């Protein structure tokens, strides 16, 4: 079944935030962000701005009717700066005007005097100064200290990954409309309607039942709208509440890029020990997470880095420590993978460092250490592992040996072009690691004409969750999809929702929908059973008809529903689902936090132009653990998209801040995501249909985040190609592998070369805006 939104998408008829027809009298907002990264505000002058034609009001922290606080996990983030600013772009004032142009013109006239304070952009520096968001966390398995002596080979090193801009094509935005009795309705482009509701409630000082948040769909989220939609919604809601008019704010791309956080950059130190047989005996790693200026979701992201610090491998002795470091960058936030990719990059770097030193292919070490069923993760859960199945199927199906030989032959024959081939196994845990978030509700109404309306906490952002939820209802009722409508996500219909995140949205909301539909179907079947005096199990719904004892009756779905209504049977149900089995004790750092894991292996091949330092992605060949995919079109799309986004993170996407904490890659002209020519020439995806029972909806395993991490293979494939050209060169594990880093690595001969892109001045930049 195709995505149920595809029809209106291709006709340009789908409605996003900026497409909602305006209510008369609507005003427009624009925020004034701090021009410096860290300092004390000594003077804020909005008089000239306020005097401009069309300007209705300029709002500062003094106007906040509730609490000036939007921090979710830790209350450390003011909505509008009061006396201090903590990052460039931090909202200081919010202009409300009668047109977008007037609001933006006024922003340019706001003057602020700020006494500068020292700016920290490096997480290691922050950690050394004790600037931590939350106390450090350590996951431990076995004992690394006493294990080093069992190791034949020990390697230490450092690895770094940069951030990543979400670049949802639809920017952030909100539209707040005052309602009677002091209530407020907010249309928001958010993955977390309840997070928006909570933030607005807190800032305005209104109880949550007066704050209605409605989400139709997002033009992309990728985690960027999980927590960071709150700011814009709260600003619009505050303004609307104060001026008693609807207020809308759809961010300009450059505002969005400068003011919102991104994937966390990480730096890490690792130590890995292997025995004679190349089994990894011990692994120690220390992560320095660049959290930015406020907690946002950083503590949760940090936790997932620890959960995935050993990727698909079993290592008996592990010690992983992680620091969430406070710097003066915009608060970094959720991004597809949620800290997992950074953890995996570090272990892959450690393995690669060992392989390079030992003169063997990294795949030899990878294969010998794959997780087996029953192996223990550092956090105590036992693996139900598909890692070896995925790996061996990929190696055999795609004939890795031949691929490897072809690469070697090519490299021997070509002086200026070199190929690289890397294997990237992936293991990703499914569930919110905060156990309480693993619950969802679904409200299902069956109308007397047989049509069905469903509301859940799931937000549709292109991942196809509404399509899957519709499939659940269609299957339970055995009716045609066109009889079912999935309605907007709304906090007045479904309360206390978890954000659409953690790849778990279809599982959680799908299961709740399954329960609700099953309950209604059950009542209708019971009615028939009583009417015909047969056992309830003898009654089935199939192809829009009632079947009894395997025989089709003449009662169709519509008349069944009507009969139920006549008999005063409830045709609506509000079901609640909570993931069973999961638990985690953060005091011991042990438990069973994931409902299940998703596995897979990718083979990634690249070609480097050794004159220019440019490269092409030749092939990505994957065996992916789907469980039993309930929608292959949607799932394949998630995998292809995830792979390309992961490759982007590892190759061309470079977030550049200068030493003053100012974003230099602040527009699409300076921040590059893959275009159609940049993607792999070939992406092959093979299903691993795994037979084991699991907690996924209809056993169809979550697919949103795991494939992103196949992209990590691109970094290591590029590294191999570079080393085929420059055998004596040493270069750091530092992603992304931009054409700059590739060229520098091709021609570096230093022992420990440090290649870091940085910025001195922007004066000569062609698009210096």
């Amino acid at each position, binding site marked *: 079944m195709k995505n149920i939104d595809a029809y209106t998408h291709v006709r340009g008829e789908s409605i996003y935030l900026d497409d909602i027809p305006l209510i008369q009298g609507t005003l427009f907002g624009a925020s004034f962000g701090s021009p410096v990264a860290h300092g004390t505000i000594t003077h804020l002058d909005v008089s000239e701005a306020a005097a401009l034609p069309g300007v209705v009001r300029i709002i500062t922290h003094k106007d906040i009717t509730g609490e000036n606080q939007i921090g979710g996990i830790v209350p450390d983030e003011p909505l509008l700066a009061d006396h201090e600013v903590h990052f460039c772009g931090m909202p200081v004032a919010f202009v409300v005007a009668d047109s977008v142009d007037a609001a933006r013109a006024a922003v340019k006239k706001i003057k602020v005097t700020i006494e500068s304070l020292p700016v920290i952009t490096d997480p290691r520096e922050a950690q050394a100064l004790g600037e931590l968001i939350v106390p450090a966390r350590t996951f431990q398995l076995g004992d690394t200290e006493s294990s080093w002596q069992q190791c034949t080979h020990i390697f230490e090193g450092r690895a770094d990954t940069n951030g990543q801009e979400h*670049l949802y094509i639809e920017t952030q935005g909100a539209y707040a409309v005052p309602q009677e009795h002091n209530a407020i309705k907010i249309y928001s482009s958010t993955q977390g309607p309840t997070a928006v509701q909570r933030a607005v409630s807190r800032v305005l000082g209104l109880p949550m039942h007066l704050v209605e948040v409605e989400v139709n769909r997002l033009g*992309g989220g990728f985690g960027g709208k999980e927590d960071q939609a709150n700011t814009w919604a709260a600003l619009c809601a505050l303004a609307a509440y104060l001026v008693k008019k609807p207020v809308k704010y759809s961010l300009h791309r450059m505002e969005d890029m400068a003011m919102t956080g991104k994937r966390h950059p990480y730096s890490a130190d690792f130590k890995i020990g292997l025995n004679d047989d190349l089994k990894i005996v011990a692994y120690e790693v220390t992560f320095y997470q660049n959290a930015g200026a406020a907690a946002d979701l950083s503590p949760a992201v940090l936790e997932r880095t620890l959960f995935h610090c050993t990727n698909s491998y079993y290592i008996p002795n592990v010690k992983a420590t992680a620091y969430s470091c406070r710097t003066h960058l915009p608060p970094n936030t959720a991004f597809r993978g949620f800290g997992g990719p950074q953890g995996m990059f570090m272990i892959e770097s450690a393995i690669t460092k060992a392989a390079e030193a030992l003169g063997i292919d990294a795949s030899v070490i990878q294969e010998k250490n794959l997780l087996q069923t029953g192996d223990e993760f550092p956090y105590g859960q036992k693996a139900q592992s598909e890692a070896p199945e995925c790996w061996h199927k990929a190696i055999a199906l795609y004939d890795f040996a031949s691929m490897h030989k072809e690469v070697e032959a090519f490299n021997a024959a070509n002086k200026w072009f070199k190929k690289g081939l890397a294997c990237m196994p992936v293991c990703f845990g499914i569930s919110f690691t905060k156990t309480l978030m693993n619950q969802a509700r679904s409200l299902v109404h069956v109308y007397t004409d047989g049509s069905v309306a469903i509301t859940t906490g799931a937000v549709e952002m292109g991942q196809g969750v509404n399509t899957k939820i519709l499939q659940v209802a269609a299957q339970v009722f055995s009716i045609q999809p066109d009889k079912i409508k999935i309605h907007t996500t709304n906090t007045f219909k479904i309360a206390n929702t978890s954000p659409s995140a953690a790849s778990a949205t279809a599982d959680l909301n799908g299961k709740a929908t399954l329960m609700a539909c099953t309950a209604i179907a059950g009542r209708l079947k019971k009615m028939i059973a009583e009417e015909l005096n047969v056992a309830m199990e003898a009654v089935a719904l199939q192809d829009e008809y009632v079947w009894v004892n395997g025989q089709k009756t003449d009662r169709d779905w519509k008349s069944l529903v009507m009969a139920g209504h006549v008999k005063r049977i409830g045709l609506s149900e509000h079901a609640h689902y909570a993931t069973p089995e999961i638990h985690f004790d953060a005091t011991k750092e042990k438990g069973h936090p994931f409902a299940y894991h998703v596995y897979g292996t990718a083979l990634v091949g690249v070609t480097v132009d050794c004159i220019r330092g*440019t490269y092409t992605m030749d092939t990505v060949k994957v065996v992916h653990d789907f469980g039993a995919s309930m929608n292959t079109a949607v799932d394949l799309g998630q995998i292809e998209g995830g792979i390309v986004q992961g490759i982007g993170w590892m190759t061309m996407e470079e977030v550049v801040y200068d030493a003053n904490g100012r974003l230099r890659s602040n527009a699409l002209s300076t921040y590059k995501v893959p275009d159609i020519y940049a993607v792999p020439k070939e992406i092959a995806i093979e299903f691993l249909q795994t037979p084991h029972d699991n907690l996924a909806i209809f056993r169809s395993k979550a697919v949103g985040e795991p494939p992103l991490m196949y992209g990590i293979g691109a970094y290591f494939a590029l590294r191999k190609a570079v080393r085929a050209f420059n055998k004596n060169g040493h270069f750091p594990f530092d992603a992304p592998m931009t054409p700059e880093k590739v060229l520098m690595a091709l021609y570096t001969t230093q022992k420990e070369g440090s290649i870091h892109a940085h910025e001195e001045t922007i004066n000569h930049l062609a698009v210096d805006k």
Partner: protein
Amino acid sequence: MIQFILNNKDISTNLPPGMVLLDFVRYHQHLTGTKVGCNEGDCGACTLLVGELVNNELQYRSLTSCLTPLGNVHGKHVVTIEGLNMDGLNPIQQAMYDESATQCGFCTPGFVVSLAGFCLSDKTATTQNAIAAIDGNICRCTGYKSIERAAGKVAQVMQARQSAEPTVFVSENHILPAWFAGIKQRLHLLQTELNGQLQPTSATEWVGGGTDVYVQKHDTLKDASIKFLFDDARLKGITQQGNRCIIGASATVTNLSESPVMQQYFPHLANYIKLVSSTPIRNIATVGGNLINASPIGDLTIFLLALDATLIFSNGGESRTLPLRQLYKGYKTLDKQPDEQLESISFELPGDNTVFNFEKVSKRTNLDIASVNSAICLTMQGNSIEDVRIAAGGIAPVPKLLDKTNTFLKGQPLSDATIDQAIAIAQTDISPISDARGTADYKRLLLGQLIKAHFLTVTANALR
């Protein structure tokens, strides 16, 4: 008063001619299928088609409506996604639907419009050409493979066209709405009716294609008094006069790439142009704009510097000739009076012993701004270099010829040693800085590599 046809509707508006087309269709016509993505021509979510009569042929081009002023569509036909909708899905939409080439859907209308532009062009119906039509559209969800498959299906649909006029073919075959067949006639009538220009007498701003000024000065241009240069017939055309090529200042990059003269004398032109921005930007970006914008990394500037192009300026009365190499006085400062307008560019076409090559490296190979770009024009006599001009961008505050390097190379035999020495000398020609496009060290290394690439490429091409 600006008049044009929007989809199937006649438009007359008194809104400022400097307003961008995107704002007009979204916020004044409430056609919300066209999306706002980046406001700088880099994402394609706002792609529209513009049809105009060129030599009595109806020619459609895609463009980014975020950078196009209303003044540049005066007398033309503007097509949005709404104008492509019929009962059910058209074959382009059906292909996107069938291949699941849409996820969040926000970029999707832009892709559909760009593919419609392919269907309305006279390009050969290949998958490669269909993909080229969407090279300016960014999708963050799909990873493009499904979109590639959809593009392939669209190409298949168009294979039956043969020599039929595209507008006639698409309307007769229910690929696009039937009213497309009547647009040519309506544009004729509109042009006859207009029979005049839209040029204010006291313009404070000049706008060509708008691809750079609307990025830099979007807010001020909206209400400015603008002289629109894009459709000025005197500034169009690419012709050969003797051994010289004359390019009108308002010729677009697309005009350049489609020019028979250019194709004849630059056999690898298509490869170079593919590295320059994207289809919708090339359709509106002018050659003159690229030079006057004075970007240190303007691709065509580097191209034309290596060809030692000459510029002709006019202040309305007098003309002045200036070699391009003398235009740039410092960062974004020009040897040009405020009342002078660039009229044309000319250069000597390469002779039999002269070879040309263009190199560009950027973070992303396509639709990106160069870290370093370079062009070479090399004339050989036997194995020795008779004349050479290497130009480079991204390595100084201005785009420039590498004078010391060029002087050294003249008269040298072509050898590895010569090239190595040239690369070393080139380091004294340049003063790169570190910025978002790369560190100074990188740019130094890269320029040397591009010089090496020039010689390897021209040698390899000579062998073919």
